């Protein structure tokens, strides 16, 4: 199978879906780069190069560079979704959701319910998230716990190029509002990605690696961290199972509970801040639904309850490491 980057996988999904469905449009800031300027067109192909080539292929009516007005264009995307289009809106950094949360939380997410089921809102909001880029506290947050908390939203957090393409295609074809989160530090990771289109259903976790001594549940970029931890644990004879929920809303409780039942020892790895997080959410699921199978405390390895610092040594200490995950796993296996 051809190898492609996470970025390229997303770009392919956007190209193929816009070609397939004329009602799909995109809007965002610097989606192309160079709009209205005299130099190269599509100069950026998006702030992270994900939307490159779409302008050429589909034109400025469908690939819309917006003003710096997130509330207006996210709201416009929601309104367009209510009325026959399938917009993909981009929030450059998920941190900026702070200026447009109303349109996401109180509008798009609630239309269908408030209107008694007589509306659908096929909207995708793409945003980058995550620490590691040395960008300080306002360009590095995870924030997916906030979206996962909100009924009416679906929350998708791909961990690898293959999933990125299949989940984005599903998101675009989905009839509900989807928050699609892309970790900046994953864009250059490479993996096998078919050229053809395929969708990955929401709410289906992926068992990344089988194991019998400890279950490591990991989200987004943390899946790679969990895999490395599993390798380290294997070295001292501990067999770790790694599961990637892929979507936090809906959450694949069934698979998570199946595996947890069998293993009974659990570590959850989450880059987000610890309070009211997806990590606590999944822990609470286990503590209620498979309590009798639990053999040890449920360990959470997360970012600390702090903003993301700028200094490289501090930012590296902020993000969960394979070592920290392995340590947490050992602490519950050997007891």
């Amino acid at each position, binding site marked *: 199978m051809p190898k492609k980057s996470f970025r390229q996988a997303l770009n392919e999904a956007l190209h193929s879906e816009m070609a397939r469905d004329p009602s799909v449009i995109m809007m965002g800031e610097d989606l192309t780069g160079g709009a209205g300027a005299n130099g190269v067109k599509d100069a950026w192909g998006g702030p992270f190069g994900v939307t490159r080539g779409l302008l050429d292929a589909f034109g400025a009516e469908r690939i819309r560079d917006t003003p710096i007005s997130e509330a207006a264009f996210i709201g416009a995307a929601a309104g367009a979704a209510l009325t026959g289009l399938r917009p993909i809106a981009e929030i450059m950094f998920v941190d900026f959701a702070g200026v447009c949360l109303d349109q996401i939380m109180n509008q798009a997410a609630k239309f269908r319910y408030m209107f008694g089921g007589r509306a659908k809102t096929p909207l995708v909001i793409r945003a980058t998230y995550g620490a590691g880029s040395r960008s300080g506290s306002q360009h590095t947050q995870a924030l997916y716990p906030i979206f996962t908390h909100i009924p009416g939203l679906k929350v998708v957090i791909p961990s690898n190029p293959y999933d990125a393409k299949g989940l984005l295609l599903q998101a675009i074809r989905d009839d509900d509002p989807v928050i699609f989160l892309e970790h900046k530090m994953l864009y250059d990771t490479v993996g096998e990605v078919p050229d053809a289109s395929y969708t990955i259903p*929401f709410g289906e976790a992926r068992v990344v690696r089988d194991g019998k001594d400890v279950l490591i549940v990991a989200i987004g970029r943390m899946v790679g961290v969990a895999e490395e931890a599993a390798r380290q644990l294997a070295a001292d004879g501990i067999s770790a199972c790694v599961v990637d929920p892929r979507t936090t809303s809906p959450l694949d409780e069934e698979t998570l509970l199946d595996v947890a039942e069998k293993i009974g020892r659990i570590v959850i790895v989450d880059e987000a801040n610890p309070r009211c997080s997806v990590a606590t959410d999944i822990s609470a699921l286990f503590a209620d639904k498979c309590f009798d199978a639990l053999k040890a405390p449920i360990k959470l390895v997360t970012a600390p309850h702090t903003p993301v610092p700028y200094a490289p040594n501090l930012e590296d200490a902020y993000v969960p490491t394979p070592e920290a995950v392995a340590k947490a796993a050992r602490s519950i296996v050997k007891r």
Partner: protein
Amino acid sequence: MSGLQLPQDKLVEVYRNMRMIRRFEERVMDEMATGDIPGNTHLYAGQEASAVGVCLHLSEDDYISSTHRGHGHSIAKGVDIDSMMAELFGKASGTCGGKGGSMHIADLRKGMLGANGIVAAGAPITCGAALSAKLLGKNHVAVAFAGDGAMNEGVMSESFNLAKIWMLPIVFVIEDNGFGEATANEHVSAGSFTRRAESYDIPAIEVDGTDVFRVYEAAGEAIARARNGGGPTMLHVHVPRYYGHYSGDPDNYRTPEEKAAMRRERDCLINFRKRVNEVSLLDAAELDAVDQAVEAEIDRAVAAARAAPFPPLSALTTDVYVKYL
């Protein structure tokens, strides 16, 4: 074209819709007193000429969005009052199956994108509907209704800018009733609303919202511009708010005198009757007949709403998603 040149049946429709809104709201106020309508509602009484004068230009395929004060816009856009009344009572037969309530009445089949509990939130949503109209190549337009208070929410300004640079077929109708809740507009709004719109190169028209013909004419110009690819227009419509901000508001921050004067001198229904009578287009008898018909419709709507069942408890967890798991 001047509203007075409207065909008879249209004139009657204008009057009927204004009366329907007025009586709907008055009746809702009475029913609130019985305690059978849950919560609170924001009544549109006094502002009828704005919704009716604008919506007379619209078809079911055109879009409007509304505010927390949304009954009038819904009725003017053709949403059925039986289901609206049922919605207010929280019944299964309501426009939203009883799940939305007064602040969330929506009927997409009629192009009504929803009342909204969040001030100014309808503006960008309506830009999106206008974008759909534009890209899906239909010749439809979208109208965003908002209040004077909404003009101070940033998303309003953002929407002006977006609508203009994208040349969207949209009209922003700012209904200025002088108050945001209990606070006078002058106390919180600097400058001029029309100049705010004009600063984005959006043409703005100031209109007396107690004269449905004036509203009709201004809206006609704005909507024609939108249909012909001329982009957005803003209407600043001055209207009286008959009741307090919401049904439970003592409204004691306005003096009895000014409230009496308002109803005496700024009543769109009285004005209408005067105008059509002057030019003897419709006589009082015809209009009285309309009043009676309206009364009967509202009685029926209330009776039906009261008789209707509440939604089944199962409705609590449906309609969150089209499909979740």
